[in-house]
């Protein structure tokens, strides 16, 4: 066994995994407030990338301005989604909200297709494609940057959930009725969680857009992001980080050994196996909340 090669696979897998985490954090934010996996997170990520491109390419802004401005726009869009669509569904079965997010995803994909067409555009962040050499190990710079962004967001949200607003959001996640009873605006809280998820979508959209180009395929990140979120426990930010690393490593290392045996395509099989096994064996994921037995 070549340990250097194995470490390279593991480290690059972990970095890719953190990019899945970056996506999954958005899913967790919405799940915490609405108890529904947001199937539109892929669509939002794609729109986030398109908005950055629109500001940077079409309006000629520098990226350092276009990205934060896109975050502001998406923050507003997140609030808007709650106001226009979700609020009407309050009190309806969760499956209806789930279907709404699916519809939203289709809508967002259709809209970008209509406006920007289907040809892939490049993000051009200016990060060098020259790999970084760490000892004997080659590491992709953009993956390293993305992993850093994921960890920075992780820390930011851990801090945020200790502020008064963050605590109110966690209260909403616990009990809508009790929240209303002490004057917490559940509607605004749900809106805020969508707004934050939309900002996370910009970060994921920029990084993933740089890696694979900006087109409708960005929305397909949902599948891996959802797998990571489920493995992490759906409502745990820490879970999303740890699960991302785990999935990334298993996928990268596993595919290296399995691909020669099955003749390629084993990455998808590994992701599918992780999702199915998690749901079957550990439905609350690694760090998911169990409902506390009443004493």
């Amino acid at each position, binding site marked *: 066994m070549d340990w250097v090669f194995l470490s390279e696979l593991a480290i690059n897998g972990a970095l890719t995994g953190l990019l899945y985490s970056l996506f999954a954090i958005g899913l967790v934010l919405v799940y915490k407030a609405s108890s529904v996996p947001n199937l539109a997170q892929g669509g939002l990520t794609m729109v986030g990338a398109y908005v950055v491109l629109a500001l940077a390419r079409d309006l000629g802004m520098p990226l350092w301005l276009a990205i934060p401005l896109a975050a502001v726009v998406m923050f507003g869009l997140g609030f808007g989604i709650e106001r226009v669509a979700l609020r009407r569904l309050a009190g309806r079965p969760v499956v209806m909200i789930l279907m709404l997010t699916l519809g939203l995803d289709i809508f967002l994909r259709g809209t970008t297709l209509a406006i920007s067409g289907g040809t892939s555009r490049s993000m051009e962040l200016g990060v060098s494609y020259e790999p970084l050499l760490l000892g004997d190990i080659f590491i992709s710079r953009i993956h390293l940057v993305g992993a850093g962004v994921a960890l920075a967001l992780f820390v930011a949200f851990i801090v945020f959930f200790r502020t008064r607003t963050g*605590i109110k959001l966690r*209260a909403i996640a616990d*009990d809508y009725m009790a929240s*209303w009873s*002490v004057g917490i605006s559940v509607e605004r809280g749900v809106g805020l969680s969508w707004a934050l998820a939309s900002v996370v979508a910009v970060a994921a959209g920029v990084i993933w857009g740089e890696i694979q180009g900006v087109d409708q395929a960005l929305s397909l990140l949902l599948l891996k992001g959802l797998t990571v979120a489920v493995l992490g426990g759906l409502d745990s930010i820490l879970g999303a980080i740890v699960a991302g690393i785990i999935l990334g490593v298993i996928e990268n290392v596993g595919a290296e050994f399995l691909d020669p045996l099955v003749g390629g395509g084993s990455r998808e099989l590994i992701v599918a196996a992780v999702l199915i096994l998690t749901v079957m064996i550990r439905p609350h994921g690694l760090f998911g909340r169990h409902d506390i037995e009443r004493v």
Partner: protein
Amino acid sequence: MQEKAQGQSILSMNSIEVLYDNVMLAIKGVSVQVPKGGMVALLGSNGAGKSTTLKAISGLLKAERGHISRGEIKFDGTDITEMLAQKRVEMGICHVIEGRRVFEHLTPDENLTAAAPMGMSRSELSVQKDKIYDYFPRLAERRNSQAGYLSGGEQQMLAIGRALVTQPSLLMLDEPSLGLAPFLVAEIFGILQKINREEGLSVLLVEQNALAALEIVSEGYLIENGRVVMHGTAEALKSNSDIQEFYLGGGEGTNFHNVKHYSRRKRWLS
């Protein structure tokens, strides 16, 4: 004259009717007055309409697809019948809902923080918390554990403390004694009485445990089948023969007791 009478009630609920799902008439013209600084009990058996009455006052009906189809509610002279629940909390009405629904995954300290109005300063919040921990020393001890693992009594104290952070002038409690040992009920009711005396907090207390409730309130209403069937001072209610028999009597209601209860109750309904 009339204005003066209005000024003495912090809450004045007149002939309120509530419909759930546009069809189910849950209360049928309930009128309740709570004097400023007073303690009032709403008594009655299961399904009578007590919780619905509180939800009509706090605005939480909307969350259960209920609405007020007739009557009006005035709080401190202002018509609040159509007001949003959140606005009512800001005005000073807080409803401790049935079943001590604390935020289970938060600590007691975070439960208190969650209820703090956004405009309340940090220092003011910590003053409020200290006051609440003084009233409920048991909570102070466990302020950083997970609220879901507190005992039933502690959770009820936390639910009350959490309501107090909103700085209400009217506190409404829905069956706070349910499932608690008598010594805990006595402790919690004692604290409520103390807060009422020291801070002039008006209290509207819903209870099936009439014996305990009538010890601390000055007046009470008996609700049956969506209507007020009796209203009087605590002394008058305690000495009323029907109340004695059905709510204060035999203590642990035996089956026999319940049978009698139902046959006699018809008298009020006719």
